[in-house]
């Protein structure tokens, strides 16, 4: 069975379009969260991307292409370039695209509602712009990918699931190369109102907006929305070595399951089972794993449940497991968050450095974990790391990476 290795990384993130520069910004604890949409009735903070579509598309190409697809095309192209695969091998049926996306083209849908209500007229390209599999299709068209081109819409676990399924396809010999990741762009007025109505967003303090999201802090009060896209090039190890590529890490195992208890309430037993399953598939014991990039959304209930799940799954080894949620700094990218955090986890593993769990001034004793509280933390013995994504709908997905 072929091992799935990571050979390229690409992001369009709130911290820019260079994966390694983004990692350095996270290492220093720089927050990309800031006030947005000032015309909204209630204050909004989010981590959005500076992105110029003209860098990637002509005006003619942009026709009917929602921002969510634009970000995906850019991040996937950057990942392929990073992997030395700007030109794909000749047999493009052996290449697949696996994309996580929670909502699809939110801006196009919202524009259609607005213009429909105003004039009864809607852009004829609204449907192809907002359909959730548009990002994957645009990535495939841009690079001429003729293998499986698939979309996973599993809320906050979407792109973690996409990566897990891509690695399975590589192990099963279905593809040699998988362009796998996620994209989300829903920081638009109507969708933001909907998130605010759900009462899960952090309440920002005026003047301290960048520190609004405080995972595992006793005074945490919710997450902040993020947008962006992140892609990893996964490759069969033999294929990568044969073309002289140097793997950054291996995606050694994963587990996906469902709590089947409640649509939005997390469940420690399900999360712990996913953590154990990922370690088992990767052939790791808890003491082998030195870092967990936590789901850590900073909701009151969620962080407690996640800490409980980590204690259940890791047992006594949880004392040596370093944990951080980088969502404090890049926000919650929803369908893209699993992939973005996978990029962070791969770079942490490759460089043996751990990004901080920022804005946690007073760790909550109810979620006692060995948090990385200082920036720029070195982890010289690091061999393996996990990245967790737990979704509305009850789906849990854990990815286990090992050093290449």
């Amino acid at each position, binding site marked *: 069975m072929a091992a799935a290795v990571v050979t390229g990384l690409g992001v369009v993130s709130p911290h820019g379009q260079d994966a390694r520069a983004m990692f350095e910004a996270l290492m220093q604890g720089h927050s990309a969260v800031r006030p947005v949409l000032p015309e909204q009735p209630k204050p909004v903070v989010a981590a959005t991307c500076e992105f110029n579509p003209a860098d990637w598309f*002509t*005006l*003619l190409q942009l*026709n*009917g292409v929602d921002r969510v697809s634009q970000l995906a095309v850019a991040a996937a192209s950057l990942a392929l370039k990073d992997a030395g695969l700007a030109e794909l091998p000749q047999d493009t049926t052996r290449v697949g695209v696996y994309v996580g996306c929670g909502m699809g083209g939110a801006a196009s849908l919202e524009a259609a509602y607005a213009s429909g209500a105003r004039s009864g*007229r809607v*852009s*004829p*390209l609204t449907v*192809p712009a907002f359909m959730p599999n548009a990002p994957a299709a645009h990535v495939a068209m841009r690079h001429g990918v003729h293998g499986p081109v698939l979309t996973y819409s599993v809320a906050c676990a979407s792109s973690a699931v996409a990566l897990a399924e891509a690695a399975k396809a590589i192990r099963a010999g279905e593809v040699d190369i998988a362009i796998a990741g996620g994209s989300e762009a829903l920081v638009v007025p109507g969708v933001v109102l909907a998130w605010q109505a759900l009462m899960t967003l952090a309440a920002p303090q005026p003047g301290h907006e960048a520190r609004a999201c405080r995972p595992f802090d006793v005074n945490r009060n919710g997450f902040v929305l993020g947008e962006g896209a992140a892609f990893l090039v996964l490759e069969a190890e033999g294929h990568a070595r044969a073309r002289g590529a140097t793997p950054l890490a291996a995606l050694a195992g994963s587990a996906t399951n469902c709590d089947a208890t409640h649509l939005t309430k997390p469940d420690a037993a399900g999360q712990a089972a996913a953590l154990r399953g990922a370690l088992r598939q990767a052939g790791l014991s808890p003491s082998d794993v030195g870092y967990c990039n936590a789901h850590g959304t900073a909701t009151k209930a969620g962080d407690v449940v996640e800490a409980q799940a980590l204690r259940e799954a890791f047992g006594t080894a949880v004392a040596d497991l370093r944990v951080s949620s980088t969502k404090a700094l890049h926000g919650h990218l929803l369908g893209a968050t699993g992939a973005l955090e996978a990029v962070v986890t791969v770079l942490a593993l490759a460089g043996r450095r751990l990004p901080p769990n920022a804005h946690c001034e007073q760790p909550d004793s109810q979620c006692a974990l060995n948090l990385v509280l200082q920036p720029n933390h070195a982890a010289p013995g690091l061999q393996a790391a996990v990245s967790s994504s737990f979704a509305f709908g009850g789906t849990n997905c854990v990815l286990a990476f090992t050093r290449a």
Partner: protein
Amino acid sequence: MSSLEELKSIIQAKFGLEPAAIDEHASIREQGLDSLALAELLFEIEDRLHIDLPNDDPNIDTLTQLAALVDRVRAEKAASSA
């Protein structure tokens, strides 16, 4: 008055195609505007010129033909409101 120049300027603003680069007697589809782009173009023309174009006219292939259709619709609109 022909709408041709207006259509060219709409195409330039919407798709970035220079007016001089457009052959108004050749097939629009063969000049880079696929069926999706064409649908968007018709919508944009209706929006900017405040007219309703007939839904499916299979005879429209060139910009000259499209301009003639727009001229006719404008003339009918002017006549009916006169």
